[in-house]
């Protein structure tokens, strides 16, 4: 297993938001977390990245326990995280945003930036524009590219297609497939459950801080019970 999150219990001080959830995906796999608003999806990604303390449970990266490793060290260990909101530096240029993603790299990373421009061609023309002026879709590309700058083993994406036009959604989904094919494990939180489960190797249906269903994307899509409660019939 690339990432193995076991029995996570976490929250923001009051009642725990996550009440014992499990996630596990392999390298090159796409895992998708779906569930209603407030189910704890974002909280789950934050816990895996170490932004909030677990009151119970553990997180393992390729068998190594990282439960108590602070977030900046997890970046070094190869976890990239794209947050749900405010996920670019608006007053920095696109190129500077990518450089910030590579802050921990000691090597020359300009080839990596070139790779990102290949992966997201629209960004190449906007390289010297400030990120705050980009369209939502382009901004999402900057955010994903920024997280990829450390060449992570695991990429966490929180609602990468929310609010985007259909053309951009397809483009982002396409890129996610490319990224996973290169061997990176991708764990995505998605509102658009149907579409996300279509590309999922494994899907996690979350509700009220618990795993309701865990199965391959295909099986979940075909499961009448899942369809009834989460996919709108």
């Amino acid at each position: 297993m690339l990432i193995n999150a076991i029995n996570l219990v976490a929250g923001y001080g009051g009642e725990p938001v996550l009440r014992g959830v499990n996630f596990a995906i392999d390298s090159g796999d796409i895992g998708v977390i779906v569930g209603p608003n407030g189910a704890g999806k974002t909280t789950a990604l934050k816990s895996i990245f170490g932004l909030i303390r677990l009151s119970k449970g553990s997180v393992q990266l390729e068998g190594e326990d990282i439960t108590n490793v602070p977030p900046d060290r997890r970046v070094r260990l190869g976890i990239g995280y794209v947050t749900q909101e405010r996920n670019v530096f608006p007053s920095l240029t696109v190129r500077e945003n990518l450089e910030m993603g590579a802050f921990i790299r000691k090597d020359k990373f300009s080839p990596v930036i070139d790779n990102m421009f290949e992966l997201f061609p629209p960004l190449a023309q906007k390289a010297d524009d400030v990120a705050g002026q980009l369209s939502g879709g382009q901004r999402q590309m900057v955010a994903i590219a920024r997280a990829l700058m450390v060449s992570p083993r695991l990429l966490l994406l929180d609602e990468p297609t929310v609010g985007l036009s259909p053309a951009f959604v397809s483009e982002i989904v396409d890129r996610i497939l490319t990224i996973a094919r290169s061997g990176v494990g991708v764990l995505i939180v998605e509102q658009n459950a149907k579409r996300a489960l279509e590309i999922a190797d494994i899907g996690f249906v979350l509700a009220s801080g618990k795993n309701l269903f865990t199965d391959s994307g295909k099986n979940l899509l075909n499961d009448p019970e899942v369809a009834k409660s989460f996919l709108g019939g």
Partner: protein
Amino acid sequence: MNELIFFINKVLISGSIIGSIYALGAIGVTLVFGILRFANFSHADLMTSGAYLSFVFAALLPGLGPVIGLPTGFVVLPLSILFLAAFAVTIDVMFYRPLRKRNVRPVMLLVASLGVTLMLHGVIRLFAGTSPRTFFAEQNKDVFRIDVPFETTTRDLIISEPQVLLIITTIICIVSLHQFLTRTRLGKAMRAMSDNSELALVSGINTDKVVQATWVIAGTLAAIAGTLLALDVVLKPDLSFNLLLPIFAAAIVGGIGRPYGAIAGGLLVGFSETLAVFNWSVLLRPFAEYFPEWVEIPSRLNFVPTEYKIIVPFVILIAVLIWRPTGIFRGQVI
């Protein structure tokens, strides 16, 4: 022509000088706000501390200035910068960092900075007393009188050596800061963290190091501003405390968190002050013959009496907070 030269001396030169001080102070305040999200009220006293440090070094190394041909207080500036930068980092480690670790609200840090300012105030008075001191006890303060080559002029443009040094140093500081923020990894990380500190952490940016760099820059600019101000006027314990309001006005006018805005804000507040206290009747008098007879030009005609010039930044501050709380350069709203 004499009147014009009087105007240049009183408004343009004075405005650039006080504007430079405000700009240097406001950059320090705005950078700390951008990174740590609190209004650092101790910045003015950090400037005063820098001036006293320079005074001590100048007293220890009195021969240095005459050898180089510049005021000793200016020559020892690198030493004061070194000490004050280290001091600013130490204050952060001792007072602000423990509070940040507890995730207190920014207003608590603001209150802590008030505490720090009172402490600095006390320490300076304790060791240096309250009487004013001069950097020019053993050295002459050079004053340049520039003759203007017009037949009708008898007045000269007047600017002192410390004032020239202040303007040059301010320009160097601004250019270097610009290079630092746009060219270096740490400088870009500083802008990134000021944009979004959570994302900076998520990106793997070493935020502790950015905070440290911020205090080093704040300390450096404070040492420069404080020392050059003291060289221009005199050294006293409340040297820059009185400048707190105009400095904050400058930072807020420029858009808090925006270093370039702070520069613009500093100059704007500085020039507004000199324009407001300028005696405009001096400029009107030569045109007296063109006025109708019943108009009498008063001997003093200024917007604000000199003693009350502190209301100028105050009015600017309130106007900005009412009509454009994000400032000219759209900074953070406080």
